[in-house]
């Protein structure tokens, strides 16, 4: 009987992490950024129908990069989780923190138990009724979770975009300015890159909207706002 090869746990984790990292690095970047009225999410996305940004609940939004089918599954289970919770308890009991923790558990489990890790990186953002209560959770392919303020970037070339935002981010930007900043930041990923408005997917969580605070910004509005920015 052939003996299975011994692979040290360390080596196995490293291999899995490298595999996942490679998958994510191929993808495009996505930015979440706090502005005066809430949080804006922007991604370079050549497809107009397969979106990376989505609504989860009243104040919570989801964004994912990497393998579409994988983060799409996570997105849907997040919506199920939130709706069940809101129906059982109350709408105010659905929080970004508990959702982010649940995601972290699930993704972490898959990373350790399955042969193939998820090639995804996701953001769970929640807008608060005052800017100090905004929260942004970043969950990595191995389930590790961290929270950010001001801005957060996921996807390939995240370091470059992060570097650019570190220098140029300001608090309490208007929506137009924040949108312009996201656009320029995403263009920094490769040299002399131009991203046309059609390839930009943008949504906001606006605390001034009554009830469900998530809103996609349609192309016509996007154009007008970028012109003003």
């Amino acid at each position, binding site marked *: 009987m052939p003996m299975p090869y011994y692979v040290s746990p360390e080596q196995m984790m490293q291999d899995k992490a490298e595999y996942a990292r490679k998958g994510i690095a191929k993808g495009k970047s996505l930015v979440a950024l706090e502005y005066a009225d809430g949080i804006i999410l922007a991604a370079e996305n050549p497809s107009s129908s397969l*979106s990376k940004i*989505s*609504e*989860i609940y009243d104040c919570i939004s989801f964004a994912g990069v990497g393998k579409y089918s994988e983060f799409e599954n996570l997105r*849907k*289970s997040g*919506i*199920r*989780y939130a*709706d*069940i919770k*809101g*129906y*059982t308890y109350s709408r105010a009991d659905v929080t970004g923190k508990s959702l982010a923790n*649940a995601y972290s*558990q*699930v993704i972490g489990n898959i990373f350790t138990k399955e042969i193939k890790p998820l090639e995804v990186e996701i953001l769970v953002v929640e807008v608060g009724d005052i800017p100090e209560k905004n929260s942004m959770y970043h969950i990595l392919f191995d389930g590790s979770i961290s929270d950010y303020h001001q801005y957060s970037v996921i996807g390939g070339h995240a370091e470059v975009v992060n570097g650019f935002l570190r220098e140029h981010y300001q608090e309490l930007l208007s929506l137009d300015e924040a949108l312009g900043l996201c656009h320029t930041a995403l263009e920094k990923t490769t040299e002399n890159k131009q991203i046309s408005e059609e390839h930009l997917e943008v949504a906001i969580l606006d605390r001034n909207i009554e009830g*469900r605070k998530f809103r996609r910004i349609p192309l016509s509005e996007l154009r007008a706002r970028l012109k003003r920015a």
Partner: protein
Amino acid sequence: MIFNTQYQGSSFVELLQKDFKQLLTNFNDLHIHEKDSSLSLTKGTTILSLCYADGVLIAGDRRAVEGNRISSRRIEKVYKTDQYSAMAVAGVAGLCIDTAKLFRTELEHYEKIEGEQLVIEGKANKLAHMIRQNFPAALQGLIVVPIFVGYDFQQQRGRIFKYDVVGGIYEEESYYATGSGGKDAKNTLKKLYRKPLDEEAALKLSIEALYDAAEEDAATAGPDIMHGIYPSIKTVTALGVRDVPQDRIESLYKAFLDSKLPDNE
């Protein structure tokens, strides 16, 4: 693990049925006698809706009764279900409120999972399925009868759908009223409804219809000037669902009552 659901589709109700049965009541095993239930259950009463130039209006009085006692003066029977639709419910209050909450979650769940809203017929049909599932309960006196209204962007008008206890769905052209005082409200609507109708006239008409229902039906509340409680009214137009503010309803009611005084004639 809450994340591993068997059900993978886009309906919230089906998700509950498959993976979260404990959150739904199973009426098949329930045996309630008609006598007991009519005495102890809170019931909501008159609701109505009518189409006007900009869309559709939906209204309900605020009274709930328990046998021959008033159990609540401020119950809400009119609910916004999504951006462009609303419903009003008559019947056993507990079930009515839950149906409205469940239906709202259902529409929202579908919209989020699929990335787009159902068309108005789709929404109306979904509600019919939910009412049909309540049929075993309805047989035992636990009745829920809603009116569903929404704005149809294709036809650019408001639309009204009425239901019966078996989940039958029927579209009404101009107006409809149901619940214990529904018949009286409908009579008023029938006599006074004229097209074209603007928002102001539609509001006045709905107020008069509810007033007439309250005059004839003990389970329907009239304007309660003492407590400052008036019917709740919502409008559904291309701009979305809007609550008609209570002070506007109050002033309309006062004007209406003034016009009824004999001195003014």
